[in-house]
Every structure is written in C-alpha cells, then in structure tokens.
C-alpha cells in the first residue's frame, strides 16, 4: 500500500509509546489509517531528551510531543495540511551541540535503533543467528569455551567474573537437568542499558543464551525481567515467538538435535532480585531473598540444578565474539578488561543517555567528549559509578581509565553501567544519605549486618544533614561501613556502604563542615541553609509570595519582599519563580 505521508516518531520507547498510541488513535478516528503510516525509530542521540517526530514528505520536525499535541498534529497537519508552528523545532531553540563523539564503539548496541526489534528477519539480515548456526554445526562446546577465553569477556552485571569460567563450572557440574538464566532485573538507579538492548535488539540476547545452553548442556532457559520494563517484556515475548516459528528455539535447532526453549519471567518490584540467588528464589515463586553461597549457582542454582546466570549485556556480546573471533574482541579494551561497555549517563551533564565505549577510556573522555561536559558549564565534582553499591570518582581521578580494576582501586565499582555526573551544587553528605536510604529500603532483611547496619548508618547520615551531627560520627560511619561490608550475605549489603565510604574518603571536608561548622558547602541540606531576598534587586512583583506554599513571604506590591526563616521550609520555589534572580541561598 502506498502511503501519502509517513510520520517517524523518535525518542525513548517508554515515553514514546503513549504518544504513538494517541497519534494512531487520532489518525484512525480521522479515517486516515490507509493514507498515513506511523513508524517508530528508537533514536539514540538524545541531544534533546523529548519525543520528536518528523512528517514526510514535508520534512516538518516536531519536538516535545505529548499524547495531546500528537492528536493536534494529526488533525491540523495530517488532515488539514497546516503544520503546527509552535510545536515545530525552531533552529535557534535547539541548543547547539557538537557531533556525537567518535569515541563510541557499538558492539552490544550495534542493532539498537537500526533494526526493527519486532522483526526477526531484520536481525537475521544483520548476521543474526549466524553465530548460533556456526556453533551448532561447526564447533564443540570446548571450542566455544576456548574462543570465549581468548576474548576474555567478563560479566557485565558488575562483578566482572570471567564468562568462560562461569560457563565451564556449569558445564562440568554433574546433573541431568541444567538451566540458563538471563538476569534482566536491571535495578540500579540510573542504569537503563539493558532495557534498551532488550527493547532494541532482543534476539541478540536469545542467541547468546542458546549458545550458553549448548555449551553447558541446558535445555531450558529463563529471562528474568523487572516488571517496570513492560515494553522490553513485550518485545522479548514477540522475539521468542518468532524464533520458535523459525526453528531457532525449540526442538532440533538447525537440524542438529539440539533442543532449547525460553520463558520470560517478570519481577514484582524488588531491587535485591538482581542478586543472582535472590533472582532464582523469585523465579521459583518465593520471596526474593539471597541464598548463602557456596554452593554457587553453577552447581546448585534453579531448583538446586546446575545453572548458568549472566546478565543481558554479557549474553548480547557472545554472538559477536563467536562470529568475529575472540581475538577481535580482545583487541578492544585494556589488559584485564576487554571489549566495550555500555553506560547510562545521567545527572548534571549536557548529553544524557546511553553510550557504548571501549573499556580503558578515561572518565574525562566520557564526561567531556561523549557527554558534552557538565550542564550549564558548572564545575565538575564527581561521577558516581556502580549505582547505590558503587562509589564516587572525584576530579583528581578524571584521567583514570575506566576498567574493572581501576574503578575498584579508588573505591568505586563498574556495576552494571550507571554513570551519574555530579557538579558543585551536589552535596556529598546528602548524596550518601540518599544512597543509604535506598540500600536500607531495599535490604531484604535476611541478614543482620545489612538490615541493622544500613539503618544505623542512615540514622547518622540523616542527623548530619539535619545539622545534628556530632564529633565521632564520621569515624562511626567508617567502622560501621567496614562491618556491614564484611558481614553481609550478598552483594547488596557488601556494597551498600561503598558510596558513603568513598564520599568520606574523597570529600571528608564536606562532612566536617556539616558537623563542626553547621554549614552545607553545596547549599543543599535544608537545616543548614537560609533563603534570602536581596532588597536591592527585588522588584516587588509578588510572584514569590503568591507561589510560596507556606506563606512565608510578605511584602507590598512594588516593594521589596521578605522571607520569614521560621516559616520557610526551604523548598526553593521562590528562587525558581523570581524573574530577576533576587532570591539567594546562604
């Protein structure tokens, strides 16, 4: 069918979906379904993080689309032929940004945004399932392991354990039934790399899992994906169905007699389920609480059977390694950390979004070359990697290479790929309190060091932020932190003190300022700051007084206004609405 016009919607799929649905609905209501085709492009260049659309053949470019104004575009532009001026991209309105960095190398993300994720043919056209075919028809399991060993691929879930060793343990473990599991419970705040792989190139993960199954001798696999990723789950289910139809999953794959099938399991909202043994408990229908290790999953995993578990990114690397050879993969990266890694850049940086870079790239290159630098050109303070279980990298380590060992050596961690940039306006005590609150809430409660230790650490941090810190608090945090790390059962408790410990190590003076001077240098902690209106600058427009939620601001129109510090709750709305920047923080 020939269409009169095409609308290409781009942007993050989770945000774009309601816009697409609204647009399709309106097009249907207007009776234009046979004339206009709506296509989705999962654009990765997120220079302007909004939902955008281009209408062809006109070439009109819309931005900041919501379901409501998508309907407007349908009635005005698509039906009546009148482009909606105020939604169009204005040249001067777009912040000029440099070209995307050439320092990126896409292996895992090579198909994301390029192919239609719901078409197995698209994936096959990009050499999809060629690696599985090669493995099943030409290679022995030991041959695959040798290639993986050459590649030196390490687990991308954070711990960095060599994939070939994990697979070997599961292969050598005795057992009539074995399982392959993919950890898609990407719960680290600020990390959404795996979501985009699952949404954009699901077959690469299925293929990697099938290869792992062949190597260890498994016939059944489970993909555990958090329920917060509905589009990833839908895409995966479509992909599995298509792979079954093509005989790439199921019985007698490629006519070799090899059988392997997959099932998607959804989480129900528990961060700790990203821990491998907790995940398996959840798959079995239990509370997601970690098990004591050993035994490790390779010998006793799902239902006590030998199980290989890797994360999404690890599996997605496997087909590429087997097609191009382990040596090709090992040519990228550093001596001990090979290949590429995806990161989700967020926080105070100009270009937020998803990137893939060779390991060994410096922190500076990621922040400034790939990320475009600190937002509003403020001063760089630190980067948090490894999420709530990682640590911060201060300015003095900006030129440090990003690899497993270097990050660990400064008290941080690779983690799954969160990369949160913090600037001079970020308070390191507040951040530590924040991460500890997260860990405390997500602690499953099974072991005492984590359950009680995180609570005690949080209490101290909350007191410091509230201006009630006392001498000895910093030392208490350090002692407690070490105990929680040593004593906890799983990675959550062992990692929970990391943000606090690394922030104390690198920004001790900020902690001291809070405790001894009752001062928050970044002007964030409410109890230690005060909002003031400069009477010289204030024009008496009354806007702040009208917007103040607690009526703490008084003054007559066209006269300088005053904030009552006793009533003020330090919400900062007055500073946001002031047209002349007369409100300052002290």
């Amino acid at each position, binding site marked *: 069918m020939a269409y009169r016009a095409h609308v290409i919607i781009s942007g*993050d799929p*989770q*945000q774009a979906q*309601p816009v697409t649905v609204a647009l399709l609905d309106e097009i249907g209501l207007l009776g234009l379904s046979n004339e206009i085709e709506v296509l989705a492009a999962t654009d990765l260049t*997120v220079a302007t*993080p*909004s939902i955008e659309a281009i209408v062809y053949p006109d070439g009109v470019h819309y931005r900041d689309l919501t*379901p409501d104004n998508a309907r407007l575009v349908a009635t005005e532009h698509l039906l009546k032929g009148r482009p909606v001026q105020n939604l169009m991209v204005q040249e001067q309105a777009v912040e000029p940004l440099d070209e995307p960095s050439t320092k990126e190398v896409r292996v895992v993300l090579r198909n994301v945004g390029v192919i239609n994720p719901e078409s197995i043919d698209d994936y096959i056209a990009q050499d999809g399932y060629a690696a599985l075919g090669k493995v099943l028809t030409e290679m022995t399991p030991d041959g695959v392991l040798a290639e993986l060993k050459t590649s030196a691929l390490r687990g991308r879930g954070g711990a960095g354990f060599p994939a070939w060793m994990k697979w070997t343990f599961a292969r050598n473990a005795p057992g009539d039934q074995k399982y392959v599991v993919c950890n898609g419970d*990407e*719960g680290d*705040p*600020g*990390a*959404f790399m795996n*979501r985009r792989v699952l949404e954009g190139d699901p077959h690469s993960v299925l293929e990697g899992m099938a290869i792992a199954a062949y190597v260890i001798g498994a016939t059944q696999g489970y993909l555990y994906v958090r*329920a*917060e*990723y509905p589009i990833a789950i839908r895409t995966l289910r479509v992909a599995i169905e298509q792979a079954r139809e093509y005989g790439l999953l199921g019985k007698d794959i490629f006519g070799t007699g090899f059988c392997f099938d997959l099932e998607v*399991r*959804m*989480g*129900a*909202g*528990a*961060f700790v389920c990203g821990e491998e043994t907790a995940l398996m408990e*959840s*798959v*079995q*229908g*239990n*509370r*997601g*609480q970690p098990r004591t290790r050993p035994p490790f999953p390779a010998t006793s995993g799902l239902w006590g059977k030998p199980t290989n578990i890797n994360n999404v990114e690890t599996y997605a690397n496997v087909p590429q390694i087997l097609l191009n050879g382990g040596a090709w993969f090992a040519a990228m990266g550093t001596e001990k950390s090979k290949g590429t890694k995806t990161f*989700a*850049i*967020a*926080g*105070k940086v100009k270009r*937020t*979004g*998803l990137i893939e870079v060779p390991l060994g790239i410096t922190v500076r290159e990621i922040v400034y070359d790939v990320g475009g630098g600190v937002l509003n050109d403020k001063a760089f303070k630190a980067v*948090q990697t490894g*999420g*709530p279980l990682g640590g911060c990298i201060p300015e003095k380590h900006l030129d440090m290479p990003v690899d497993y060992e270097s990050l660990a050596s400064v008290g941080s961690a690779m983690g799954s790929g*969160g990369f*949160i940039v*913090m600037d001079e306006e*970020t308070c390191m005590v507040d*951040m530590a309190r*924040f*991460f500890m609150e*997260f860990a405390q809430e997500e602690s*499953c409660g099974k072991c005492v060091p984590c359950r009680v230790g995180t609570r005690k650490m949080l209490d101290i941090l909350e007191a410091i932020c509230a201006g009630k810190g006392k001498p000895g608090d910093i030392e208490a945090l350090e002692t407690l932190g070490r105990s929680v790390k040593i004593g906890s059962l799983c990675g959550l408790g062992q990692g929970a003190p990391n943000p606090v410990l690394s922030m104390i190590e690198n920004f001790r003076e900020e902690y001291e300022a809070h405790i001894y001077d009752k001062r928050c240098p970044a002007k964030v902690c409410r109890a230690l700051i005060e909002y003031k209106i400069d009477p010289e600058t204030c024009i008496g427009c009354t806007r702040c007084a009208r917007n103040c*939620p607690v009526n703490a601001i008084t003054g007559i129109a066209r006269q300088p206004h005053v904030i009552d510090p006793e009533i003020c*709750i330090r*919400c*900062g*709305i007055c500073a*946001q*609405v002031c047209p002349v920047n007369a409100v300052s923080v002290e």
Partner: protein
Amino acid sequence: MEDVLATTDGIIDVHGADQEALVEILREVNEVSGHLSREQMQRIASRLSLPLSKVYSVASFYSLISLEPLGKHVVRFCQDAPCHVVGGQQVWEALEHELGIPFGATSLDGEWSLLTTSCIGACAVGPVMMVDSDIHGNLDPQKVREIIARYRGEERSGGIV
C-alpha cells in the same frame, strides 16, 4: 466478591496452580484488582496448596503488590539518585503539597495514591514520575501542578473547572 474470586481463578488457570507461578499470579491479580485482598490470597493459597502465611510472605515482599486498596489515580515518583541530582526533592514536595497527602498515603476521597517507585530507567529525562501507566519526565514543581490538574480536569470535563 464472587467476580473478584472468579477473576483470580482465571489468572491461576492461565499460569497453572504451581508454587513456581506464585509471584506471577500475585502480580497479575494485583494488577487487575488494584490490590490483593485477604479473600484473594486465601483463594490462591488453597488452589496452590500452600499455607496462607506463605502467600502473604511472598505478597508482602514485593513492592509492586499492594495489600491495601489504592486511589483511582496512582502517582509513582522515582526516588532514585539520578532524579534526585536534577531536582527531585522540589518535585517530591510539590507533589505532596499539590495532592495534600504524604508519600505512601491514599487521599480520603479515594482519588489519589502517592507512592514512590524504584528506577524506571528513564533517567535521561529525570526527574520522572508515573501517573497510572503514563511516564512524565523533565519535571519541575510547575509542571507537576499542570500534570495533576490535567488528570483532575479529565474527570470534570463538561463541568466548570
């Protein structure tokens, strides 16, 4: 009540009356009914041949499963670090103020529930919140007021706002 239990039975039939499917069954029943009642948990326990205490222990573990009835609209605000760094605190307070309820609560008229969510992976456009199943990003206090007003307006459409 009979309807609710019939729905519960239907969901169990789809997944099979296996302990293995417990998390999926609980999540789906919760999704359809808005929350999990004691009667529903009892039905699930008897169908799966599990003690009620086991069903309760699993149901109470996961944050997406609610044991209390929620409001007509559910706001889930992302409380994680990337959203916090870019001004989440102000948005958080604006939400409490706008809806007149603290976090974790449901308004007395049953219209709104204000909850937090773990990271929904939309960090590039933080601060982020979900209202029912819609994701709203790049929030600030002003935008929060507008969005909430829009959901309120929908219900009053036709009337005088």
